[in-house]
């Protein structure tokens, strides 16, 4: 069948190749997984089952149930963010839908959108589907992959219309402090940039609490914050996210959402409400376990000579393997059956690095890092 040009022109994701290589073997320990290894807290799953039992299988309001929007707004008050649940919150089918809606709402044909890289692989295609042109803004290992005004300046981001910001970052695990965000916010105000802030990993930070650019002076009115339940509550498959922003932006996003999605999955909304109400202890335990794994993995990589900065969030470490990261990852998979994702898949600045997910049991992490150490020894 003839397909549309815009679909044909979308590049294949670089992750696909590694997925196929890894799937072809059955002895693989995968450090290539971008989702939690935990299951959603039982209370949330149980609430979802209860909803099904009571026959709650119809649509909800387009923007999501009133209770869930209320609970989301209350949660964000705890982060010094104030959003009106009636007009400034939109519940979506995964954070992915919220990102897509934000692009379709904020990008006019011909607009350019600055995307710091390395970053999650969906932003550039999302911008292109919305008719915009992505502009790559490489971040630097020397800055631990934080976005700086210098990086923005060097890439010519001052001329763009929108900035996509994702911290804690996939794939690097990098986080940004309030002070660092203040500099980016100043750049955005000076060049009149709006921001889509994908904060899906905000609950997974180690040491310092998450900082949002939307709390910087003058930024709330020019920022759409995207978040969701997938990473914090380990419920990726339930597909539930949300967007927070000024009423006019959320209203416009909801206009698209009502035609394309109608409402986010009802069962998932029920689970999410329970997650917000009663599952914070479990999130805390998951974060503590991620933190132990993070420390183990980072210390082991540094000990074996793969320089790794200390990632402040998400569940990724980003060791430097030097040279051709794709070849390194392929050889590692071939020789030792350990799957990692080459950093260059995530765009400019990722080359010479590997994305290592520590959303895997401690036992497997130990085995995998032992194998990587052996691979390095035998390669020399």
């Amino acid at each position: 069948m003839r397909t549309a040009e815009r679909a044909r022109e979308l590049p294949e994701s670089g992750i696909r190749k590694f997925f196929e290589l890894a799937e072809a073997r059955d002895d693989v320990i995968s450090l290539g997984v971008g989702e939690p290894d935990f299951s959603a807290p039982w209370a949330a799953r149980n609430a979802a089952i209860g909803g099904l039992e009571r026959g709650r299988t119809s649509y909800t309001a387009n923007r999501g149930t009133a209770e869930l929007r209320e609970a989301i707004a209350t949660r964000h008050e705890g982060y010094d963010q104030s959003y009106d649940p009636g007009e400034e919150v939109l519940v979506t089918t995964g954070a992915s839908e919220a990102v897509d809606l934000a692009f379709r709402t904020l990008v006019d044909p011909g607009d350019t959108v600055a995307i710091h890289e390395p970053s999650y692989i969906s932003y550039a295609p999302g911008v292109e589907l919305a008719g915009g042109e992505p502009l790559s803004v490489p971040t630097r290992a020397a800055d631990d992959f934080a976005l700086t005004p210098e990086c923005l300046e060097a890439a010519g981001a001052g001329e763009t219309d929108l900035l996509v910001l994702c911290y804690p970052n996939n794939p690097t695990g990098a986080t940004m402090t309030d002070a660092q965000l203040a500099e980016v916010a100043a750049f955005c105000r000076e060049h009149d940039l709006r921001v889509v802030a994908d904060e899906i990993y905000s609950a997974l930070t180690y040491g310092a609490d998450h900082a949002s650019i939307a709390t910087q002076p003058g930024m709330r009115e020019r920022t759409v914050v995207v978040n969701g339940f997938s990473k914090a509550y380990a419920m990726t498959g339930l597909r539930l996210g949300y967007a927070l922003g000024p009423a006019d932006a959320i209203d416009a996003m909801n206009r698209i959402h009502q035609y394309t999605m109608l409402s986010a999955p009802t069962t998932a909304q029920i689970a999410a409400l329970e997650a917000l109400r009663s599952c914070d202890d479990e999130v805390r335990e998951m974060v503590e376990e991620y933190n132990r794994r993070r420390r183990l993995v980072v210390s082991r990589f540094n000990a074996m000579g793969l320089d790794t900065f200390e990632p402040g969030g998400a569940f990724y470490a980003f060791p430097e393997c030097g040279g051709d990261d794709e070849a390194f990852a392929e050889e590692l998979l071939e020789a030792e059956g350990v799957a990692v994702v080459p950093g260059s898949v995530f765009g400019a600045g990722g080359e010479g690095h590997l994305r290592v997910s520590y959303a895997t049991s401690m036992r497997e992490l130990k085995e995998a890092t032992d194998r990587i150490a052996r691979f390095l020894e035998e390669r020399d």
Partner: protein
Amino acid sequence: MEAEREVLDVLARNAREDIEDIAAQTGLDADAVEAAIASLEADGVVHGYQAVVDWDRTEDGKIRALVEINVELDRETGYEQVADRIAKFPAVDALHLVSGDYDFAVEVLGGSMDDVSRFISEQVAPMPEVTQTVTHYIMETYKDGGVRFADGDDDDRLSVSP
């Protein structure tokens, strides 16, 4: 104290972690981990290290029972004294003073139902303070020590995902 808590969190999940790995996971150095463990042991926070065993899967098995015990105290005898006497039996795996309808909840481990019955009727019931015992044999254990006893911890996630 923070260090001890971090070390304890690791040990409570896996008491077989070696010192180097505990150090890596907690961000402490190996000496600090050793010191924390020594002080946890000295302070009676950590009393020992045991495997979580599903006895039903062993060849000769073991029978476990939960036993409710009611006691009558007098001027000379308190819960502490009764507990001390019951705890001395090696068959007693765990002993708790509880609120509710009875006084002590006892976990008894024996080679057979007969062993456990005889232990209760011949050793525990005749104690002068004991007024009543109710024995519940454990038919099946689904979770113990925080560990779910079940097959299949299948990871059905895609092996590589964005």
